[in-house]
């Protein structure tokens, strides 16, 4: 299996180089590298509570990455996913807020899930129409909508949905306990089930259905696909809708499962982070859960770094970014050496 061994070499090369780079970086800031790595591991896997925190990050990452698998298939750069998460969160908050006095808690939660999907999908359709109808590159359309979504959240928190008394950056008034997504020993079981179902559906659509094949065909060669009778524009909109909907669900999880209210940083940069996840997964679905777990560990483990070692927690972001960069480079370097052997 030359394929497997080359993948393995690529991974070992990537992790080795990232290890060396991070160690140099830590030495530059006069921090002992080994202690830092130990703290990262202990801070994420050290206790059951911390593992539960890791899964709280894992769930939204998986949901966003599933969405991005569709858009990347079409060679679309759905940077707007960040805003789609925010809109999902707004949709979920609105539903929970308005339905809570009239319905039992579980109806509220299910309808919030539904409306967060719709809200995220509509926001993504906005970016999709800007691309297909108004010719704005999806990167800039998405970015513009991200800024709008951020403004919308700030306006809601400081305006109509402000906390009784004073409006502040700490967000809206927390929901009633009955509206919190139930957990088991702090583990977000419902979120984990939701994430696994979404990943399964995504994998099935991408690998075994006609839709998955069509998306791939349009992505690889839009011109040929058009001759074959496929509509690139329709497929773009479809992929964006699915991506936005899944991102919206992760917004729902952030609201009902993690923060229990709407806060300005509700998306926690998970949208951008999952773009990295999918790139590192080489746009395939099966490595996604493992990479999400790795990234979630880094995110959770780095929270205590500022307290203990007096270094910024953005170290996790640096490690994640460098991982993807080195992985991309290693891919091409491997190919080059192979060609020379042949």
């Amino acid at each position: 299996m030359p394929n497997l061994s080359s993948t393995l070499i690529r991974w070992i090369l990537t992790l080795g180089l990232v290890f060396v780079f991070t160690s140099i970086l830590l030495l530059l800031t006069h921090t002992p590298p080994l202690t830092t790595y130990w703290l990262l591991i202990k801070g994420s896997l050290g206790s059951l509570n911390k593992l539960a925190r890791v899964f709280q990050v894992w769930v939204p990452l998986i949901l966003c990455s599933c969405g991005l698998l569709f858009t990347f298939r079409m060679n679309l750069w759905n940077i707007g996913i960040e805003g789609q998460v925010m809109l999902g969160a707004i949709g979920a908050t609105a539903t929970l807020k308005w339905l809570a006095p009239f319905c039992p808690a579980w109806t509220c939660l299910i309808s919030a899930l539904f409306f967060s999907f719709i809200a995220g999908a509509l926001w993504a359709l906005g970016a999709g129409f800007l691309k297909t109808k108004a010719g704005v590159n999806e990167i800039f359309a998405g970015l513009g909508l991200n800024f709008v979504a951020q403004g919308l959240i700030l306006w809601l928190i400081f305006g109509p949905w402000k906390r009784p008394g004073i409006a502040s950056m700490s967000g809206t008034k927390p929901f009633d306990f009955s509206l919190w997504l139930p957990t088991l020993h702090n583990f977000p079981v419902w979120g984990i089930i939701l994430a696994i179902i979404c990943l399964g559906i995504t994998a099935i659509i991408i690998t075994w259905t006609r839709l998955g094949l069509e998306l791939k065909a349009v992505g690889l060669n839009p011109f040929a696909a058009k001759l074959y009778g496929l509509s690139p524009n329709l497929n773009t909109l479809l992929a964006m809708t699915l991506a936005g909907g899944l991102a919206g669900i992760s917004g729902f999880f952030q609201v009902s499962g993690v923060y229990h209210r709407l806060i300005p940083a509700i998306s926690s940069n998970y949208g951008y982070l999952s773009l990295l996840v999918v790139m590192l997964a080489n746009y395939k679905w099966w490595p996604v859960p493992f990479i999400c777990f790795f990234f979630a560990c880094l995110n959770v483990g780095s929270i205590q770094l500022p307290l203990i070692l007096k270094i910024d927690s953005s170290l996790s972001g640096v490690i994640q970014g460098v991982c993807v960069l080195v992985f991309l480079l290693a891919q091409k370097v491997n190919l080059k050496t192979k060609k020379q052997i042949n």
Partner: protein
Amino acid sequence: MDVILLLANVVSNAAPLIFATLGETFTERAGVINLSLDGTILLSAMVGFVVAYSSHNLILAFACAGIVGALIAGIVAASSLFLGLSQVAVGFVLTLTCRDLAYFLGDAYTRLNGPQVNHLSIPGLANIPGIGPIFFDHNVLVYASYFLIGLSCLYFYRTKYGLVLRACGENPKAAYARGIKVKIVQLGYTLLGGFLVGLAGASFSLCFKPGWGRPQGAEGIGWIALAIVIFGGWDPFKVALGAYFFSLLQILSILFQNWCPSVPAQVFQVAPFPLMIFMLVILHFSRQKAYHLWQQGPVWVRFLIKFLHTTPPAALGSSYKEDG
């Protein structure tokens, strides 16, 4: 608010944007997209501030920031030109990585008072009523931005080097056939563009939003710079106008904030960014069917449409293979 004071603010606020956008214009006109601007600006802002803080030498600080910018651009160029990686993918990863790297390395230098670029009004010129206070009562960086606009306009359209630069972005194969080393030219201009973006970063942390912190205040500017290059149709003069336009939007948003205190201030800080990006929609329609309809309209509409009508460099973003 005084109109002259407002325009003076617009002019000075746009200076770092002009460095960044013209840098990116050089890069994109040569056929390379450097998407890493947002991260590069922050990283070079951090480096510029730290060097200035420890050495008290502003020229050294600007040079270091520029070199950092060029290095990042070098990664984008080398990985796409020589390894065939996607420029968008590498650029995007670098955007996120450089931002976090800046926060991580600059953590020890947050909220410190460092040296700043001094105010320097040009004697004589600054006393002209009207124009003087608007254009000649700022600091060296603002004057450098005027100089850069003029220089790049001349360079692009009036020199042989400018012709080579445009040829590499429009038709690299033809340029190669004429004996131009396309990849070297593209690498060179990407490095130059990165250097200018680095200067933009340093001018944020040393002059326009002095100091370092998290957030620094220059977040999002890199993305806007990329949008402005499209808005300006890859033409240095129009790109500079785009930068002034965005600066005007920012200043106006501060004014509106005072007029409607009921809307939270954060909304106004965010507003110019989507507005600028959605300007691109207007650009698109100037290229479409509506173009012909609007052309029959009044003179000013025709003029506006002609002005906004643009086409990107034909070979933008595709890494050219000499053997292919």
